[in-house]
């Protein structure tokens, strides 16, 4: 593949990002500028920035990949990512803005007047932030490897450096401008190729993806195998091999019988036209009909997994620290609601696209089901389906969009994690708040970068859903009860946060380390939000009722602040610690 254009596309995104940051950093002068852009951002631009920050590598690459592999059951990923904002809008947005706190830990302290709960919340923000950044860096590694043939660590390193330059340059105000731009870049980058793809598909006599048989190679196809894989063969197949299969070096035709076969890294496989695509052993082989219908994947406890995923994504969104921090940049509670509403529209617009890539991917780049790298379908499909010069330009466009996706989310998360680290840890040693923020930013970038070198790579959208699960099991019950239930106590909140956080983290750890768990343990551990969130909520309620003597002093004043419109002239004396 001619990768020059793709490289140019990505490089342009990086340069424009740094350029915008440098331009707007001239405007950032006070400490407040660094954190929340002085709350002077108009609603639609703030919404663009939130959406820009939210649409990560998981959305840009991962969703299409999961839909390609999993079909109808995977639509819950984009639907859940979007519906989360309905819950955020209806239950959290305005009161949270009115609380006047800058970050989630600030909110905990504002609501519960407890520095201990604040500390737990800070630790959770850092944990969720790192869990979320990790797949962004891995996604960048994947994209650069596929487009430019670089080693996988290069992408993550480049993203980290860019993020650091942007943040150290200008703080949140530059981030707002940059992320607003990145949203629109991402929408164009994913939508324009969709039009070309659909046109190419129609020109190809609109073949249906809903076939009676599993996907086939529509052409003689050469596949390079980068990592050692095990594939399942459902139909005897004769192919040409250069490399090693089933631990035997081969250079010539091989016939695979039904069953599992291994392929060594560095091998090249050439499949004849019309051959059924062997699938990676961990990817279920579905006929087009099965792919197009829900609950047909043959996975165990699909219904539980579906509901648990919905649970994690619907409730997790409101607990994502980097999204919430953005709501403080609205001038008041009403504006926060308007911003959330616009976000629902912007995010929904974007999510119309991934299903198209997923469907056409099964027709035009089915070899990704063999290699298991369906996360690459958005990057590879324009070349595979459209081809020619147009294909190259479209590839450059999606490459630019993908770069925007890693950068926007990684930047937003790093700002948030850095904000928390700097307020709660670094500022105790470094006097100058701006220096302390920069030191914290460096720390916030380096840890996930190092983690990325050792951690196993999951499908991107799945990896991100783990961060959602932790958020759903911790901050979501805290926010719901904190905003709507005056009787929440500091002890109750702490107990629930700790329990939910530990349960979700342990479950994720086990299911990542032992991916082959089957039956109920496998299903429950891989989707923990559905039980960890109710457990955390229940714990918060019960412990709060048991410690009723610790109800926050002056909680009525706090409720007034959270719920009365700014236009009403009541006292709202409380302000977040250390600010204003």
């Amino acid at each position, binding site marked *: 593949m001619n990768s020059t254009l793709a490289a140019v596309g990505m490089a342009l995104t990086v340069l424009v990002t740094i350029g915008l940051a440098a331009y707007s950093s001239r405007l950032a002068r006070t400490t407040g500028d660094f954190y929340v852009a002085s709350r002077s951002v108009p609603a639609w631009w703030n919404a663009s920035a939130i959406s820009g920050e939210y649409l990560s590598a998981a959305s840009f690459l991962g969703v299409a990949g999961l839909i390609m592999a999993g079909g*109808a059951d995977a*639509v*819950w990923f984009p*639907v859940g990512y*979007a*519906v989360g*904002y*309905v*819950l955020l*809008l*209806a*239950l959290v947005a*305005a009161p949270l803005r009115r609380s006047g706190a800058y970050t989630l830990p600030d909110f905990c302290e504002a609501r519960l007047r407890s520095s201990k709960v604040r500390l737990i919340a800070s630790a959770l923000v850092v944990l969720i932030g790192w869990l979320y950044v990790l797949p962004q860096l891995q996604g960048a590694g994947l994209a650069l490897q596929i487009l430019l043939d670089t080693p996988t660590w290069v992408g993550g390193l480049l993203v980290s450096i860019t993020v650091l330059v942007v943040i150290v340059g200008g703080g949140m105000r530059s981030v707002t401008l940059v992320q607003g731009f990145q949203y629109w870049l991402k929408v164009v980058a994913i939508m324009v190729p969709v039009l070309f793809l659909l046109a190419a598909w129609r020109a190809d006599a*609109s073949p*249906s993806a*809903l076939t009676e048989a599993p996907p086939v190679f529509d052409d003689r196809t050469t596949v390079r195998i980068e990592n050692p894989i095990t594939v399942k063969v459902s139909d005897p197949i004769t192919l040409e091999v250069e490399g090693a299969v089933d631990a035997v070096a081969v250079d010539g035709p091989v016939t695979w019988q039904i069953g599992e076969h291994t392929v060594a890294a560095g091998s090249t496989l050439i499949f004849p036209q019309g051959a059924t695509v062997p699938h990676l052993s961990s990817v279920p082989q579905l006929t087009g009909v099965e792919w*197009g*219908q*829900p*609950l047909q994947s043959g996975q165990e406890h699909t*219904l539980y997994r*579906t*509901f648990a995923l*919905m649970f994690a994504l*619907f409730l997790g969104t409101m607990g994502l620290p980097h999204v919430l921090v953005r709501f403080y940049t609205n001038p008041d509670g*009403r504006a926060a*609601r*308007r911003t*959330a*509403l616009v976000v*629902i*529209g912007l995010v*929904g*617009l974007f*999510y*119309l696209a991934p*299903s198209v890539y997923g469907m056409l991917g099964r027709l035009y780049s089915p070899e990704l089901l063999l290699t298991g790298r369906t996360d690459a379908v958005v990057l590879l499909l324009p070349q595979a389906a459209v081809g020619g010069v147009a294909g190259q330009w479209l590839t450059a466009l999606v490459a630019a969009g993908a770069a925007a996706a890693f950068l926007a989310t990684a930047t937003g998360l790093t700002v948030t994690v850095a904000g928390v680290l700097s307020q709660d840890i670094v500022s105790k040693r470094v006097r100058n708040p701006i220096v302390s923020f920069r030191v914290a930013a460096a720390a916030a970038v380096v840890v996930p970068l190092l983690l990325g070198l050792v951690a196993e790579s999951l499908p991107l959208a799945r990896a991100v859903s783990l961060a959602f699960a932790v958020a759903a099991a911790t901050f979501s019950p805290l926010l719901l009860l904190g905003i*709507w239930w005056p009787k929440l106590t500091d002890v109750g909140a702490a107990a629930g946060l700790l329990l939910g956080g530990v349960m979700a983290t342990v479950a994720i750890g086990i299911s990542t380390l032992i991916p082959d768990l089957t039956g109920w343990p496998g299903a429950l551990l891989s989707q923990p939000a559905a039980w960890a969130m109710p457990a955390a909520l229940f714990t918060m309620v019960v412990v709060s009722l048991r410690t009723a003597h610790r109800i926050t002093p002056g909680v*009525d*004043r706090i*409720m*007034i602040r959270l*719920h*009365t*419109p700014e*236009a*009403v*002239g*009541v*006292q709202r004396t409380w302000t977040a610690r250390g600010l204003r």
Partner: protein
Amino acid sequence: MTKPEQRPKRVVITGPRRDVRRRPSRPVTDEIDDQTRVGQVYLRSLIRAQLLLGLSTVALVVVPLIAMPLLFGFVPRVRELQVGPMPLWWVLLGILVYPAILGVGWWYVRQADRNEAQFTDLVEGR
């Protein structure tokens, strides 16, 4: 004291003129600030209205979505339904769900603003 035959002197009995110099009533904002019973009642009613609205909004979106996998999973005939060349599932969850949640969100924002405007009128209008 007075003799019954003696007619009492006519006197004019008046109360303070309430219609002219009414004692200024306490604004509800003060009641809220002082966290009196009255203030609490007003605030609680606002919070209850907003919570009810929020939960209704969530239910309006989440209940149909939860019903989808059950409906499609257990009623095979629904699975066969198509809109043009596209299966119903993809029309609903690939496309229509996004304008639908935007519509519900818009409705919520309008209602929430209305609740707050009513509250503002109530506490500042006296």
